[in-house]
């Protein structure tokens, strides 16, 4: 069932369980999840609401810690880390892309992308800016560096968010419904970008409930009731760029 692993493991989950206490009831969100994601994989995590998908994302993003089990991120055990240690780990190893972009209001694209590096004392102001500009060029926004977030379209805002996730050169990019707020055409543009990043060797985890996206990733993990139901490799990865070319062009974009 588990696909053969040839690359260095970036994410290793061993029997992850997460329980919440709601009132007097114990809610088991994750009931023993184990998998390994190697470097350079593009993994889609699917599941309906209530499947434990969000809880898993929080744990993978080091925002939350499992009740039991072991989680190694790029070889580092996360479960026993303090809040501050996890904050530093997120800063160096993880790039987040959210459904609603989460850009800072009234702030330029460059400043938004610089944000993670602001919390890294090792990066000076000049290097910070250079890296932000490079990341923005990479996502195709080299001509919109000084645009503020309210002067951009949804697709552009999500590109800024992706640039922000790239800027710290993370071990893994975590995308949470990253195309959920976008129209079909823009969604595919973003998917094209993710596929390009994948081809460049980036490790990407894309959490979604949209089964269509799974066709464009290299592996799909499906959750149900806090357990893994399916974990399949995709041997026939579709090219999002081809699909995009077939889509009718939006007049208003």
């Amino acid at each position, binding site marked *: 069932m588990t696909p053969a692993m040839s690359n260095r493991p970036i994410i290793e989950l061993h029997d992850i369980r997460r329980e919440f206490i709601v009132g007097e009831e114990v809610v088991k969100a994750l009931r023993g999840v184990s998998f390994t994601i190697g470097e350079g994989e593009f993994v889609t995590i699917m599941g309906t609401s209530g499947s434990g998908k969000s809880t898993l994302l*929080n744990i993978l*993003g080091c*925002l*939350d810690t499992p009740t039991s089990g072991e989680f190694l991120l790029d070889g580092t055990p996360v479960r026993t880390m303090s*809040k*501050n240690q996890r*904050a*530093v780990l*997120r*800063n*160096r190893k993880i790039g*987040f892309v*959210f459904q609603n972009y*989460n850009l*800072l*209001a*009234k*702030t330029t694209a460059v400043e938004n992308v610089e*944000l*993670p590096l*602001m*919390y*890294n*004392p090792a990066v000076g*102001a000049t290097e910070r800016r250079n890296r932000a500009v490079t990341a923005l060029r990479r996502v195709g926004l080299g001509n919109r560096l000084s645009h503020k977030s309210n002067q951009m379209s949804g697709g552009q805002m999500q590109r800024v968010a992706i640039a*922000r996730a790239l800027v*710290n050169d993370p071990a893994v990019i975590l995308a949470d419904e990253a195309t959920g707020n976008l129209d079909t055409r823009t969604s595919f543009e973003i998917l094209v970008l993710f596929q390009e990043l994948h081809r460049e060797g980036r490790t990407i985890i894309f959490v979604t409930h949209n089964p269509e996206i799974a066709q464009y990733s290299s592996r799909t993990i499906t959750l149900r009731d806090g357990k893994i139901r399916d974990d399949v490799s995709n041997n026939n990865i579709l090219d999002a760029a081809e699909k995009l070319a077939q889509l009718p062009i939006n007049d208003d974009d």
Partner: protein
Amino acid sequence: MNFTNLFKIAIKAINNNKMRSFLTMLGIIIGVASVITMLAIGQGSKQSIKQNIAEMGSNMIMINPGADRGPGGARMSADEMQTLTLTDYETIRDQAKYLTAVSPSVSSGGQLIYGNNNYQSSVSGVSEGYLTIRQLKVESGEMFSEADIKASAKVCVIGKTIVDNLFPGGVDPIGQVIRFNKMPVRVVGVLKSKGYNSMGMDQDDIVLMPYTTVMKRILAQTHLQGIYASAITEEMTPVAIDDVTQILRANHKLRNGEEDDFSIRSQEEISSMMTSTMSMLTLLLACVAGISLVVGGIGIMNIMYVSVTERTREIGLRMSVGARGIDILSQFLIEAIMISVTGGLIGVFLGVGLSMAVKVLAQWPIAIEAWTVLLAFVVCTITGVFFGWYPARKAANLDPIEAIRYE
């Protein structure tokens, strides 16, 4: 995250909400400005009172007849008491060790007449030493002499107000004979003008005569209404008072345990008495102003809470990209401090400006002291930290998972 970055973020956050930030600052601005202005007015009045009292005399000691309390505990007016005599004056003059000048004091009210001009005033019977004690100078003519005192001569030295009222035509008063009630007196000197003191008393409304003249020819009395003296230095004033007390007690044959039948006050005492009222008033004004500063601080707290709630998503995002609790805490704390310090700076300028305006427009004495500005500034910084702390801590304690999805 280093401090430069934190400051950049804070400035940006303040800039993003200019109107709100300004209104929040307004509380601090008004608070600081009013503290500075109130203290400036208070300190100014205090200084001018001190200065005026200092001008009254040099290290002056005032000896009055009677104890603070008369027999049976009833207070008596100084005029009714006859415990100070010329002998007391002479003994002090001859025996006291720490005095530079001594003068008896008797006075009587009455009408001064010259030609068809008259003026209601009072004459003071004093000795030559009085000029030293009260820091008076003879501008033209001369002070009456020891010989005049011995002879109870009908001579006087007058102040500028008397000159203006009796000699309006510009006649040189020296050598002229004026009348006090019915007694003719020759003017031998005119005093240099001192103007009004802080209590609105005309210090030039003064007529000096030999004390012998006033005692024998006007009042027909042998006791003194008071004795003025000047201590050699301000520091020696208490020693001089002790010395004079011993002399007078011996003179009056008071036994141990018996109360003094005289009272001695120094200029220092009067000065501190007068300024203590001012200090109270200053403190009161500063308290009222201080309350407005606290209200301003609560304004900051209120706005910071709103800001934290409003920016929950931003906080969640910052946390998810690696901000630690301390980073978020510092960010909001610095924002609060910047609002209060900027408000404080504007308040300092406004306060200094207002004080100047009061000085120019209302002609009030103003004294802006460095410590008041510093105090106002330090207090408003502390206000920023104090009232910024709770909202900042609330922000730092947010759960990033919930904050990032906050709607």
